């Protein structure tokens, strides 16, 4: 998938040729989401021995405009899972309401909650797939982090087409290009991820957020990060990127006014 949410859900340029965006203009009211409007950028996540670390910055962009700078894109579910949203923010808010009602419904009954991260991911993927099949997609890619029925770390992705996959590390949007390679060197497979400590995983994710802030023009230095284990969720929503070094910027040549 392209790193720009605007590119998601379109025929691939390399297969079908450049997309003619003029078809997006019409005079009548739009019934379905045909393009994302206010968007969130990458979500990154990594499994470790006891759980999963997941992070996303707090920015919602309107095209290239940094429109909302305090949007929380990580959402907890019943102390059992965290969902990280990339893509359209209004669709994220719709899903947020949907999950709240699901949460309420599931809490009824004498036994209380039984939906874990795995169940939640299955549910979300069906919602996405149903909506894409109605040609009325929810323009998001989400990561679901938590633990499964056996209390083992669970991490999986679902997107606007209903495509799902699971891996020791995942990243949406620009993160798929910039963060994923960093995370994969650390956790090339499940065994390696199971050997990571919480501290190592948190450090790696923070490093990824920094790299993304350096290079992703639609990112921000304020972000949310959550650690999910079987014992619960530790969510921090107002983290600042630390120890940045912009010294490299001085060495970049070939842009702007300077000649060499």
């Amino acid at each position, binding site marked *: 998938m392209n790193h720009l949410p605007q590119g998601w859900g379109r025929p691939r340029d390399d297969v079908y040729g450049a997309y003619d965006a003029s078809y997006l203009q019409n005079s009548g009211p739009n019934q379905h989401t045909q393009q994302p409007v206010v968007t969130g950028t990458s979500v990154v996540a990594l499994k470790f021995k006891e759980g999963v670390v997941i992070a996303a910055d707090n920015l919602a962009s309107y095209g290239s405009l940094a429109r909302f700078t305090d949007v929380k894109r990580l959402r907890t579910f019943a102390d059992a899972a965290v969902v990280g949203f990339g893509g359209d923010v209004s669709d994220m808010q719709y899903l947020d309401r949907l999950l709240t009602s699901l949460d309420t419904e599931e809490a009824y*009954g004498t*036994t209380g909650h*039984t*939906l874990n991260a*795995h*169940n939640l991911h*299955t*549910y979300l993927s*069906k919602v996405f797939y149903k909506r894409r099949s109605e040609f009325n997609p929810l323009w998001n890619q989400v990561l679901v982090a938590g633990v499964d029925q056996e209390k083992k770390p669970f991490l999986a992705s679902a997107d606007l087409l209903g495509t799902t996959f699971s891996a020791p590390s995942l990243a949406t949007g620009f993160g798929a290009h910039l963060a994923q390679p960093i995370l994969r060197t650390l956790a090339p497979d499940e065994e390696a991820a199971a050997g990571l400590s919480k501290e190592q995983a948190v450090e790696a994710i923070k490093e990824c957020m920094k790299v993304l802030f350096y290079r992703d023009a639609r990112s921000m230095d304020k972000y949310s990060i959550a650690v999910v284990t079987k014992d619960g969720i530790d969510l921090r929503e107002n983290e600042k990127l630390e120890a940045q070094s912009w010294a490299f910027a001085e060495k970049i040549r070939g842009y702007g006014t300077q000649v060499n």
Partner: protein
Amino acid sequence: MFRNNYDNDSVTFSPQGRIFQVEYASEAVKQGSVVVGLVSKTHAVLVALKRNAEELSSYQKKIIAIDEHLGLSLAGLASDARVLSNFMKQQSLSSRLTYGRAIPLERLVSAIGDRAQTNTQHYGKRPYGVGLLVAGVDETGPHLFEFQPSGMTQEMSACAIGARSQMARTYLERNLEKFADSSREELITHGLKALKESLAQDKELTVENCSVGVVGVRAEGKAVIEAFKLFDGQDVKQWVDLVADGTEEVAEGENMEVDA
């Protein structure tokens, strides 16, 4: 001559506050042959007495496997039970499809409870003429539920419904404290003994006339559950022999009835 004017439909109360149609439906349950269910900390067991309508006919089906993790036994109108079990099968399949989760028993049982209740509140409808024992395991362990045509459902630690089931219930009440810590085999044996109590004088338990259904939280050395399995014919011989006359009567001391 006295004629009851309050039993023409299931939406009219009698002046005494009774709904006769619902009570008649409960009578249908008592016409069915006896079924017994009981739970331990690890297993849930159903045992049933099968009748054959005539010498030449086959024995009726008393236990139905619904899903991997649950099954039911019925007393009363078998065709009504089939409607309910089809519904339950659909519900449990749909839970697995949408959430990737085995449906919690309480949820499923209250779903059929609600269905049965609506039949008692709409003109022109008829209550289900069948009682069910639903046994299974979910994330909160093994469970046994009783269902009645009135829509009443309740969780039981042991239960018997159907013709002459009072004798079986008496056995269950006397031995109640033994069930929780019983092994799989012990639990089945208790079930068959309870069933035997309800037998008519000239009847015996045979491999032809009894069915056993077993489900457990965890198969030995496996992470998955011991799936609901129905035993019929020669497969129940091992247990029927255990409770055959003369084998256990000595140990029990009481109930030294001797068949003619």
